[in-house]
């Protein structure tokens, strides 16, 4: 075995190990099935709530910096929710707000070293997407009754096409939670795998002596750029999730 081959084989980059779940708090965590994933959910929720409560504590007419930030967060989601769903959907605004900030905080917390990205687990994103799906179906039935099922036959389409159109519409409707969850999950996993792979390159190159030390700078530079990209992807995916939720709920309430 040549030198490189032994290095590559000896220290393979474990790009997926970061997604493994480990119980926290020892045997208590094991018994309660409490891994680092719910721990970071808890941290994210506490951070968001602390941001809102501490920010809004002055409740002044002329806001300070933190209060202005909290108000901007509120206005951003409020405009998104009401702008998409209309006033009929105002009841769903807290839900959309919770979704957006839960996902955003998860995405951003995951970028910190030694942390865990709970949005990189398909189980979590699927649970969120199914929650959206179920709520939109319940809201549809609540607001439209059985007229909700008329949407599976597009208005104005020729009747003889219905054997083709109705299954397609049902399929596209049922694929919503799948696409919603996989989009977020795949983005987070891809980003973190890339970060880990390039970080691994740095360590491997550093083991190659002088030239390796020089070349090892390149993956670090790439990782810095990737971190910036991940900051964009994190907020973008949270926004996409929130706005798709708003669109699904708009179809439920505004027809």
């Amino acid at each position, binding site marked *: 075995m040549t030198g490189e081959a032994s290095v*590559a084989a000896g220290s*393979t980059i*474990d790009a997926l190990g970061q997604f493994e779940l480990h119980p926290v708090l020892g045997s208590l965590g094991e018994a309660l099935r409490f891994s680092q994933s719910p721990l970071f959910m808890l941290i994210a929720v506490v951070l968001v709530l602390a941001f809102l409560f501490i920010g809004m504590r002055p409740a002044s007419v002329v806001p300070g910096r933190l209060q202005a930030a909290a108000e901007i967060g*509120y*206005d951003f989601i409020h405009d998104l929710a009401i702008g998409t769903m209309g006033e009929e959907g105002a009841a769903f605004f807290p839900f959309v707000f*919770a979704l957006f900030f839960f996902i955003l905080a998860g995405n951003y917390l995951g970028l910190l070293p030694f942390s865990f990205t709970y949005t990189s*687990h398909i189980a979590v994103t699927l*649970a969120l997407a199914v929650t959206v799906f179920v709520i939109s179906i319940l809201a549809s039935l609540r607001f439209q009754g059985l007229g909700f099922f008329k949407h599976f036959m597009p208005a104005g389409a020729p009747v003889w096409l219905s054997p083709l159109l109705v299954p397609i519409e049902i399929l596209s409707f049922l694929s919503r939670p799948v696409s919603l969850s996989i989009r977020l999950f795949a983005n987070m*996993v891809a980003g973190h795998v890339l970060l880990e792979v390039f970080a691994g390159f740095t360590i491997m190159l550093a083991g190659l002596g002088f030239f*390796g030390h020089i070349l090892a700078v390149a993956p670090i530079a790439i990782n810095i750029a990737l971190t910036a990209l991940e900051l964009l992807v994190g907020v973008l995916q949270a926004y996409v999730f929130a706005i798709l939720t708003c669109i699904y709920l708009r179809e439920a309430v505004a027809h």
Partner: protein
Amino acid sequence: MHRTPRLFLFAAPLAAVPGRAVAAGMPQLNVHDPLLIGQVAWGAVIFAGFYVVLSRSALPRIERVLSNRRTRIQNDLDIARRAKAESDRASAELLSTRHEAAAQARANVERIQNEARLSAETHARETAKRLEAEVANAEARIAQSREQALSSLPAIATGTAQNLVSRLIGEQDEQTVASAVKRVSA
């Protein structure tokens, strides 16, 4: 050890990523892991708690602050608008009052000027009348004195003529002298 590291750069991901990933599988898909289901259950609880705190406390609090601000700004605007309307009215009132006062003052000035002119005219007329009367009076008196003077002239002339005649000729013929004087003065 002396080969170029570039070859290694290409070899590394091929060797590293798929090997381990395929062999171990993604931890996210390991459905037998009790922690995987556990995180969903815990996540549901945490998310539900997050939602409840947001919808019951955090978001209404922000909404209250924002709506307070909106109403306060609206109220301030209303107050400002009312104050502006009031000041506009006051200034219009002031302007009209000033106009009125100016008009009144002009009227007063005119009236007083008229009065002064009238009184001056009457005064002048009265003075002229009085002077005319005085002039007429004086003329009458002059005429009377002249008449008197003229009426006493024959007697004086007769007396003077008789004196002269008596001194010249030593005789007195009053009748002749008087008729001569009368003839001359006539």
